[in-house]
């Protein structure tokens, strides 16, 4: 359906331009004075020294969630790799050592130079093993190969950086609920 937006015609004062120009000058002066006298209220921050607050809902760098014993929660079902529109996830499966679980990933690689940060892998995961809530938006490496996150780098995160209400993060080794979770998990760390 075509929707026509009617523009309000300018009245003669507006068409004279000079008064509207003065109004514009007034606006810019307000902004200038704000920057000059209340420098700290500027919406921009001096970046590397001050970082903007990033919410955990922001789709940032990935991490793999961990079981209480420290193994990745991933069951190598390939759902994320199938959902990925950029084909940046590469998984190789292996048989799990835990009898209750069929498979585990022997390789899990995300190429961050290819990733489009759409978050579909997070949506697709049936066991909540992959998340994008690290708030890590800027990561720099020397070579292209370094941008490929593997099983080690994806699982290197500290539960203390995450909310105490985040049960799954706190159940990982080092988290405040790890002991409790280990008891219900009833398995020794390999």
């Amino acid at each position, binding site marked *: 359906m075509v929707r026509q937006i009617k523009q309000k015609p300018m009245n003669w004062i507006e068409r004279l331009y000079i008064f509207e*120009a003065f109004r514009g000058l007034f606006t810019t002066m307000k902004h*200038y004075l704000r920057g*000059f006298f209340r*420098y*700290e209220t500027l919406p921009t921050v001096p970046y590397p020294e001050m970082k903007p607050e990033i919410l955990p809902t922001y789709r940032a760098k990935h991490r793999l969630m961990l079981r209480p014993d420290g193994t990745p929660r991933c069951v190598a079902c390939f759902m994320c790799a199938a959902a990925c529109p950029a084909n940046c996830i590469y998984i190789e499966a292996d048989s799990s050592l835990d009898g209750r679980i069929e498979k585990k990933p022997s390789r899990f690689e995300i190429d961050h130079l290819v990733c489009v940060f759409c978050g579909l892998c997070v949506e697709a995961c049936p066991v909540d093993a992959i998340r994008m809530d690290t708030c890590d938006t800027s990561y720099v490496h020397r070579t292209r190969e370094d941008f490929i996150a593997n099983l080690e780098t994806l699982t290197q995160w500290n539960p203390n950086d995450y909310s105490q209400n985040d049960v799954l993060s706190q159940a990982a080794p080092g988290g405040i609920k790890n002991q409790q979770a280990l008891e219900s998990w009833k398995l020794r760390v390999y």
Partner: protein
Amino acid sequence: MMEILTSRHWLEWAITIAKFAFAFVPIGFILLLIPLERRGAGFIQDRQGPNRSYFKLPYFGRIRLFGWVQNACDGLKLFFKEVYAPNHVHRILFALAPAIPFAIVLISPCVIPWFAPMVFTFGDAVIRIPGQTVDSEVGVLLLFGLSSLSAYGAVLAGWASNSKFSLLGGLRTSAMTISYEVCLGLSLMGMLLLAGSFRIDEIIAWQDAHVWGIVAQPVAFFCFLIAMIAETGRAPFDVAEGEPELVAGFHTEYGAMQFGLFYMGEYSHIGINSILVACLFLGGYSVPFVEMSTIQANVGISLGVLCGLIVLALLAFLHMIYRYSRWYKTSSASNKEVILREYSLYKLLAWAAVPVVLVLGILSALFFHPEYTIINGEMVYGAGVAFGTALIQLLTLLVKACFFCWVWIWVRWTLPRFRYDHVMHLGWKVILNIALINLVVTAVIAKLVLGGN
């Protein structure tokens, strides 16, 4: 030869030669305008502007000077780039063109009066020093003539570059300059009519005796200001170097310091024009609400008041520094120590300057009492009074000019660009007519009210 030399007192010669230093005032304005433009633009757009370049001092660490160091960085970068000319250019004219606007800038402030004519006794001699470097009868006409010459730089650059963007840019510049010179001259005519002289110092004297030009001729003031902005070729009238159409206009093919000369020429042109507007419409060097004779009679107190104003400005500066560093201490920044260390330098300098200036001001107010001799029925003071008055007047002029410099930047970052035909329409069909009507009305009123000849 000796007769010319001995016709004047040696001090008069010395001051006359020293006045040539005023040619560099517009170049000093570049140092003010570039940070003002870049950080002012930042603040207007809710950014911070360039503030990261620094130099290092032993104890205080990285000194940023609120972005002032950026000037030096820009300049150094332009200086050390390779001067490069493409193959297809006209070598001589290509090298000559950037020098023209910059050379004009050095010449054109010669008729601007920086202070009221100084008359003072020195020993037995009575010395008269005019406020301008060149004491010319045609004054403002000479200035217009010289400043419109800078269009030659753009035209030559456009022609010599042998590129169609440059050529179109040069063409547009010449068209703009010609159109708006007409408006410029005509809008000024009302003011000249009232003052009855082309000399800028007489126009200022008229404003001092009656009212400022901005009150007497408000319409002319706006026409003049718009024409001035258009003549310097800055936004919203920057059709000559409009980025969307012409890459960069006449200086498309230039780089390094050759481009820098165009850039600096433009900025110092703004400086000269600001001084001119301040002279013609804002009373120039005359201090508002205070007669020059009052300043001369109480020169010690006047200098004391000046020192008091400087102290106030320093205290305001200190207040802002303290406010900001207090906020910075509580912020989450990772470079707190660096910034606070830097600010401790500013605090130290300002706190050191406050008592010095204060004591100087009090001393001058208490102990500087001028003595005068009466020559031809007028009180004539000594050299100290003359120089003190000249200093106050020079500072007054520069403050007014700085305000207009800000107007240039303010307008640039507020208004969108005009299309080329709109610029011509505004110049020839609107401002020219307004200026003409203003001239006629002024002439009639001047005839009726002032009863002029």
